């Protein structure tokens, strides 16, 4: 394509690295940001997009999604997942290996990367399994997977229960410079559980999963990270005890990072009342004090990342007896809105902090380049309108709509997305082919 100059007019530009937090015009020429200034003069060959009243931020990165491919393409495909990601403001996502078959070898890693390139909507960066078939027994071929493009390793969905295996995994991945992403759950404590253990599980007669199932495993994994020096990234932190453990470990200088998900700072286990299977997630929704601790952890830097843990499920699987329904909720198209609605709008976090949690730190955890809005850099940015919208099943690009936030009023709609210089979401419509 020949000369294309797009002028984003009057947006509120926030970028963490270049420390911008002002109303600015941005000129994007052939995919590159060539000027950032006030009241830029409009030239004849400019395509002008009026983004006044909207926020312009670096493109987001979701390091925890489930794209269900291969195996359950009825729930999500690379294409539908990529579109959902784009609509949610993400241009890079990591997909977890708990597929069928599990992504535990270089061939499947290459398969994902090739598919992602073919669809060419967002970058899908695969996470490989820690152990073969995610059985927690023998290490998978991590080196081979790294060379094919894996950016980290996880048996997500399951913990690595055997501490000896976990130790070796951290040592081996440490050698490769890649993170081990843990699903921290002591299965002896969580066995048969379907929701948080507490008053609500007692009155509903549903077996509970205590917080200690998560915290005790995090405690073990921190010790193993300390022992091996390997980078431990703790997925979906849900409770106060876990936040406290990570805070202490960071003080000690342990090589640990962690993430939480929007549902853990937005909801408590009361969302399960009425046997709402859309609120069934693992780790489970906790209590008010946990929500407060998660928010505190986000504010003080204990929690590095907000990830979606996007977990699509078919409607017939969720319209089921509570104890038979699968765990998980979708998140790609809700994460940013929930973060804005629950944290930014009430003044708990500012935009700079949101960018850190959803763009900068996620990239760092998996050793990818950090996107910035600065003169001379490629356009990787998102325009967000802080307007109200109602989430409903028709509003999602995802093939699934299992979420407790269905039919809820949320703030924040992504209007434009530039990825690697290309305008892929234009006025809310996906333009990529």
């Amino acid at each position, binding site marked *: 394509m020949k000369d294309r100059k797009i002028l984003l007019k009057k947006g509120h530009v926030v970028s963490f690295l270049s420390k911008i937090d002002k109303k600015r015009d941005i000129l994007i020429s052939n995919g590159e940001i060539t000027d950032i200034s006030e009241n830029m003069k409009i030239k004849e060959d400019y395509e002008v997009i009026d983004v006044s009243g909207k926020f312009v931020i670096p493109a987001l990165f979701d390091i925890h999604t489930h794209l269900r491919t291969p195996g359950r393409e009825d729930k999500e495909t690379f294409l539908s997942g990529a579109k959902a990601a784009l609509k949610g403001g993400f241009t890079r996502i990591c997909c977890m290996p708990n597929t069928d078959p599990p992504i535990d070898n270089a061939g499947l890693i290459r398969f994902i990367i090739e598919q992602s390139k073919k669809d060419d909507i967002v970058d899908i960066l695969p996470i490989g399994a820690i152990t073969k078939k995610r059985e927690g027994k023998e290490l998978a071929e991590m080196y081979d997977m790294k060379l094919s493009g894996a950016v980290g390793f996880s048996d997500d969905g399951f913990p690595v229960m055997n501490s000896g295996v976990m130790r070796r995994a951290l040592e081996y991945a440490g050698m490769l410079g890649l993170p081990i992403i843990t699903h921290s759950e002591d299965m002896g404590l969580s066995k048969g559980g379907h929701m948080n*253990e507490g*008053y609500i599980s*007692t*009155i*509903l007669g549903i077996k509970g999963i205590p917080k200690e199932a998560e915290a005790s495993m995090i405690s073990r994994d921190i010790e193993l990270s300390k022992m091996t020096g390997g980078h431990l990234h703790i997925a979906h932190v849900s409770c106060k005890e876990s936040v406290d453990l990570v805070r202490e470990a960071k003080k000690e200088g342990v090589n640990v990072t962690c993430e939480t998900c929007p549902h853990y700072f937005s909801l408590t286990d009361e969302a399960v009342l009425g046997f709402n299977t859309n609120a069934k997630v693992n780790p489970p929704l906790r209590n008010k004090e946990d929500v407060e601790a998660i928010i505190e952890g986000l504010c003080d830097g204990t929690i590095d990342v907000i990830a979606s843990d996007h977990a699509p499920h078919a409607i017939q699987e969720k*319209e*089921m*007896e509570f*104890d038979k329904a699968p765990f998980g909720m979708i998140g790609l198209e809700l994460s940013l809105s929930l973060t804005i609605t629950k944290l930014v709008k009430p003044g708990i976090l500012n935009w700079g902090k949101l960018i850190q949690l959803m763009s900068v730190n996620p990239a760092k955890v998996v050793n990818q380049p950090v996107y910035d809005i600065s003169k001379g850099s490629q356009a990787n940015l998102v325009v967000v309108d802080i307007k109200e919208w109602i989430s409903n099943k028709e509003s999602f690009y995802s093939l699934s709509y299992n979420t407790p936030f269905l039919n809820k009023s949320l703030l924040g709609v992504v209007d434009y997305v530039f990825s690697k210089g290309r305008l892929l979401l234009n006025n809310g419509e996906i333009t990529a082919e």
Partner: protein
Amino acid sequence: MVSSVKMDETKLVKSWDKKHLLGIRELSKDEIDIILDQARAFKEVLTRPVPKVPTLRGKTIASLFFESSTRTKLSFSLAAKRLSADSISLSSSSSSILKGESLIDTARNIRAMNVDIIIIRHSSSGVPYILSKVVDCSIVNAGDGTHEHPTQALLDIFTIKEHKDNIENLKVSIIGDIAHSRVARSNIWGLTKLGAKVTVCGPATLIPPKIEQMGVKVVYDIDEALEEADVVNVLRIQLERQQEGLFPSLREYTRFFGINKERLRKAKPGLLIMHPGPVNRGVELSQEVADMKKSNNMPYSVILDQVTNGIAVRMSVLYLVSICKSENGR
């Protein structure tokens, strides 16, 4: 056939707005009283030479029992017949659930046969709630997982009221596997709403977390639970719980939590002994205690009265849910 049942229809129709009976938690004290008052009227019907009324003539009731049952299933079935309803029943072992049909599809199909009331027992907590959202007929919970068993609690309270003057401030001890008991949960909701003082007692491993928040006292000493009680409701202990590692052996359970005559020496005169059945004789209740007859201010068992009363209480529930006009009543 005698058709007159003593009841103040207008008052009932006006104040009753529950289309389903899902749990006791959702009921108010007044609603519990309405069910019990109505049950009293139906109990009188059951003493007649022809123990039947045409109240639900033309209505169709489907019983879906996806878990084994003797008392509850027969009791509901009799209740429907005594009200002249047409009743059909299905159990999981003979249904298309075995062919992989989902529960919700099963319920939708049954509703498509123009059934008015679905009575459901299921091993998963919450099933009646889930069905109440997907089918538009009345749902009556006949026991769901470890969640609620509302008609059992209602018949328990009905039985207590026949023997004790007032529920308010009455001391009721519920003994045994509280964690896995839907009977315990429904009784706690019902009794506390009516002002009783409820104590639960069992091994620490069978007491669910934060149950105190339901307004009950927790004790681990059976003698303490028995000493002050006006009523003791003893739950069945299931052998599977031992295999799950929740208590060491039935022998030890019986020794520390089983109720025998010796243990009742310090009990209050006239202590009511209740059990939802089926009884493990010689485990949670000794043979003697399970069969104790009323005499000389001694404790006595009302286990079979509970069963008799179950029919009247279930007639009352089926009648009430069928008169509800509201569409979204719960």
